[in-house]
């Protein structure tokens, strides 16, 4: 399991109800179900992956988060997880509002566009950055709304969203983001992981 999922699973307490949006092949769900006795559900747009999840005994619904989230009742999950997908939605703000409505707490991870390698790539090469977390060309990337860790923190502040926890990942190393180190982390982190409500 990738480091990001380790971080996310540590945030999630045992025996809680979790909705994994864009759950992929269900790796995180499986871990949460088997090791933390979480009651997990998933939403995934790709048929093949949904079938894979169902065959593993995971309850996953085929569907697109931008259309499907409205059906879930208010605060029906203890946690809603959205891993590195927020930037791919047409309307990230709307999706985020839905996540906050459905989940008592929401875990969002974002690839950090403020990472130094990204900045240098654009600065020196003058072309759209391609990194480990952003592997696609500008013309085939699913990412429509890239943001930086700082952007996301500013957004939460502006919208009165409480950040309960903020972590970042660089070279598989986890550290905490604080008000003091925000500028620094915004340069040196590849990924930001936030627990919000």
């Amino acid at each position: 399991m990738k480091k990001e999922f380790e971080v996310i699973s540590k945030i999630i307490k045992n025996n809680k109800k979790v909705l994994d949006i864009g759950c992929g092949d269900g790796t995180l769900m499986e871990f949460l179900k088997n090791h933390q006795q979480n009651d997990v559900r998933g939403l995934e747009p790709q048929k093949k992956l949904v079938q894979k999840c169902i065959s593993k005994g995971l309850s996953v619904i085929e569907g697109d988060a931008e259309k499907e989230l409205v059906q879930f009742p208010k605060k029906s999950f203890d946690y809603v997880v959205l891993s590195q997908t927020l930037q791919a939605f047409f309307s990230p703000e709307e999706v985020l509002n839905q996540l906050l409505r459905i989940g008592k707490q929401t875990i969002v991870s974002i690839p950090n566009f403020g990472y130094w390698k990204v900045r240098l790539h654009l600065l020196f090469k003058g072309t759209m950055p391609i990194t480990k977390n952003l592997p696609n060309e500008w013309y085939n990337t699913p990412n429509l709304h890239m943001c930086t860790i700082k952007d996301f923190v500013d957004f939460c502040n502006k919208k009165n969203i409480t950040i309960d926890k903020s972590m970042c990942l660089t070279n598989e190393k986890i550290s905490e983001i604080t008000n003091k180190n925000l500028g620094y982390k915004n340069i040196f982190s590849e990924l930001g992981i936030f627990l919000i409500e």
Partner: protein
Amino acid sequence: MPGLAGLFFCLNMNSELKNIKKLIVNQSLELDCGKTIKNFPVAYETYGTLNKKKDNAILAFHALTGDQFCTNINPITKREGWWTTAVGPEKAIDTNKYFVICANVIGGCMGSYGPKEISPETNKIFGTTFPVITIRDMVRTQKYLIDHLGIKKLLAVVGGSMGGMQVLQFASMYPDLAHSAIPIACSASHSAQNIALNELGRQAIMADPNWKKENSTPDKGLAVARMAAHITYLSKKGLQEKFGRKLQDRKSLKFSFDADFQIESYLRYQGATFVDRFDANSYLYITRAMDYFDLEKQFKGNLSLAFQNTRSRFCVISFSSDWLYPTIENKEIVIALNACGANVGFVEINSDKGHDSFLLDVPEFLKTVSEFLSSTYNEIKNEEGI
């Protein structure tokens, strides 16, 4: 001569019908229409072996024209069971592993209480004096069978089309009687389009002058009903690919109303073979039951209330080219289940075989059913282990 042959076939069929498994329910059951029935037969068949713990039983519900013989050769019609693709040894619903139960619905014509049976009051065949039945009545009668077999909790209830409606009704009425539920290509409330199509079939039957005559069957009407319905089970693309404008045993058009096109010949064949195995009045009753099905209305317009107590794990499956029970209608079931926090998975299978996909060899579909069942079964085993 044809008359004699027909009579012989009829007698022969009836003697065969006597040999099929039947549970005579001696309790009285009040039907949704208000009438009470008593001492009625529920014809059924089982496949595989019920294990000692009785935890490997699957109840499969049949669709409009199905019966209890879901696999192997149907002893009455001598044709393959309607779900031979899915049920059998090492198939998706593996009879080496599971005990599969399938009953003929009430109103049907394969031995269960239906319009073909003799009315105890008049000593004549019921015909249209048979009470109007509902999907809920069908499910209630099958519950007697489960009790009779001594099964406390089913591993799964499964069915497509009208079978799927029974799955939904079962899950709603008996929230803790099945570990899992697989409603396939169905709807929680029959749409106007589907009521219209059923009405077309019924009118075809009732327009046949033989329908009201004693000792005769409205074969023409029933065949037309079947032909019309059969089109709705396929997709435009599927039809085009299979038949296109291909001609039937001829090189050019005959400028007549013969079956010039293969599709015409195919439909005529479907209609003609159907009347040998199906009772026209059963067709009226069962299509009516489907039309009356509205689970949402049973719960005052809130479908999620239908499932609020359910403890079953659901796997809802639809097919991309099914326009009779389209994905959007299946999805409404998923939405209702989500709204009440039920455990639900959903997948739309890509297939151009239309509504009939659930009866055909669609590998992705069969794989999903197979793996969902085995993961559910393993989970039960694990829980029992603890």
